[in-house]
């Protein structure tokens, strides 16, 4: 049975996010010979990606279409951008989100802007895949969620799935999209097998998913923290608190209509993400809601995010760094107090 909110029976199977993304890329490559893949160690000779997301693809589609690269992220992004302008649809892997920092010029000054600066003559249909997330003892330079930077960059789209089905459907849309898409995968969510329909259609970018209807408070989240929000909602239900749960899935563009309609109904909202709270994605959502729903809110919008600090190594600190189920429960309760 499907784990989605839909009720009609669909054939499902248990897959991880890794497998789901692999399937999406594979289906896109099968359907369109112009879809190509590059990144460090992505070909099967090098293991099909550091956690195996691209495993099997070079064997299936050839070494020309799935290329391992040197450790040179500017060159990776440049090759992706140029090939995209040259007519290809490129899935480029930047192994970890922190490594976007060595390719920021290519991403934000070029991929994001070339369509605009050329007056629409050139476009850059690329997907930039990357993983990130605290909680696996990788320390300060391998764990950051930087989606707010990219959401602040016109020309980019930013996608962060929380489960295999969404990961697959969103990846299909991201590859088909004519513009650059940052596709952010949370390492903690990678390995959990979850039911997913055998056939997944493309899920439009920019559409949030309400996974649970509720009346008391809206909890808005995305990526692995959304799973914690779901657990928090279950916890709150025990106390009779009815939560409406929204998985944003896409941060830029984000689904203003769905979020506003929900908070209009519940009158209360909690936004939770892994990135540091200050100047994070939650700020944009809260700022929008207070404006759109002025006078209609029953409580201030609450934001949850990491404290204003780097990701620590030590396990105790690292766990304290990440927004927890208890944090979300407490914030939701606070809006009802």
């Amino acid at each position: 049975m499907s784990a989605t909110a839909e009720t009609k029976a669909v054939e499902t199977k248990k897959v991880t996010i890794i497998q789901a993304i692999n399937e999406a890329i594979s289906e896109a490559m099968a359907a369109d010979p112009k879809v190509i893949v590059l990144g460090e160690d992505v070909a099967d000779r090098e293991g099909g990606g550091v956690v195996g997301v691209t495993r099997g693809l070079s064997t299936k589609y050839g070494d020309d279409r799935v290329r391992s690269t040197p450790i040179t992220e500017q060159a990776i992004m440049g090759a992706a951008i140029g090939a995209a302008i040259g007519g290809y649809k490129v899935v480029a892997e930047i192994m970890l989100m922190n490594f976007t920092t060595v390719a920021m010029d290519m991403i934000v000054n070029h991929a994001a802007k070339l369509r605009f600066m050329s007056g629409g003559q050139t476009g850059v249909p690329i997907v930039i895949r990357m993983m990130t997330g605290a909680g696996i003892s990788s320390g300060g330079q391998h764990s950051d969620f930087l989606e707010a930077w990219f959401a602040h960059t016109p020309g980019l789209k930013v996608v962060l799935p929380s489960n295999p089905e969404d990961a697959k459907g969103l990846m299909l849309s991201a590859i088909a999209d004519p513009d650059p898409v940052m596709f952010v995968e949370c390492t903690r969510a990678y390995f959990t097998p979850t039911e997913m329909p055998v056939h997944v259609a493309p899920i439009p970018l920019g559409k949030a998913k309400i996974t649970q209807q509720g009346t008391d408070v809206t909890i808005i989240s995305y990526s692995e923290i959304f799973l914690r929000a779901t657990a928090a909602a279950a916890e709150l239900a025990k106390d009779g608190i009815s939560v409406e749960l929204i998985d944003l899935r896409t941060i830029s563009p984000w689904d203003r209509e769905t979020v506003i309609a929900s908070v209009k109904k519940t009158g209360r909202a909690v936004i939770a993400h892994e990135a540091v709270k200050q100047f994070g994605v939650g700020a944009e959502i809260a700022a929008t809601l207070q404006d759109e729903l002025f006078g209609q809110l029953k409580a201030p919008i609450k934001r949850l995010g990491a404290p204003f600090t780097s990701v620590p190594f030590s396990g105790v600190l690292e766990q304290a760094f990440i927004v927890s189920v208890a944090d979300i429960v407490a914030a939701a309760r606070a809006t009802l107090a």
Partner: protein
Amino acid sequence: MATTSFASGANAAQPDAATQVEIYRRMNLIMQNDEASRKIIRSGRLMMPYYSQRGQEVIPSAISVNLNDDDKICTIYRGIHDMLAKGVPLRMLWAEIAGRVTGTCKGKGGPMHITHPASGAILTTGIVGSSMPIANGLAWAAKLDKSRQVTIANFGDGASNIGAFHESLNLASLWKLPVIFVCQNNRFAEHTRYENGTSVDQISKRAAGYGMPGVTVDGNDPFEMYAVANEAINRARDGEGPTLIEAMTFRFFGHVFGDDDFYMTKEEKSAAMAADPVPLFRAKLIATGVATEGQLVAIEQKIAADIQDAIEFALSSATPPLEELTRDVYAEGVA
């Protein structure tokens, strides 16, 4: 100056008479266009940051006669000469520079961001070094397509020190991409002399570090420049991979319009200007009987008229409507 890995002397490719005249035409077009640009800025009729290419006419002219329309170029803020040589239409170019909706990029890119895919002019970047990684990608696409197209990546001497240069040459060599890296070495990066920014006496020596042929050429000599470009382009087309060409030249009018050249000696500047490649080549064409004075004058007059026409077209064109501000951010409109 070509190194041994390049054909030289009798073995070097020679432009035929018609090609020589065509190289001259492009040089003259660049020169006259540059003069018109500086004049119009001085007059106050147009405001823009302008990076004169005067003195660097030979490089793109002698390269581009070896290219087809569907070959690609990537260039930099100082790249209008590259654009003109590749065939970007004058009217659209001027309209872009003037910020008009009739420009190549509807006025939204400006002189630092000219793009005109129909001429193969794919990218003008304002970020030092960034023409190279993207040129690789265009070349990769051509290689995947088996199209025999080549891509030229233009950049300055200063850009040869930045990370993107290194990463790009490494990848291009590894993947045997059909790309030619053309360093237009005008001996200055903004106000910094070559030797104060660059740790090697010839940039072409860096090619060895990528297992790639590298050559330093007199970028003001149309014959040398033609021969070296021809060989590198042919090699790229034949799947034999990239080349690094360091083309020695000089920019006569400083880094950006208004620059007062305090950082160079009067002597070096006047020596460079005395060796102005445009009149020199003109004289040579006449002396060698390749063209008559009359033929060249006709070419020059046509160019002057075309530039005038383009300027008038540009200045009489409309500025972009306000809707253009948020159009082309995404394919389907703003998110």
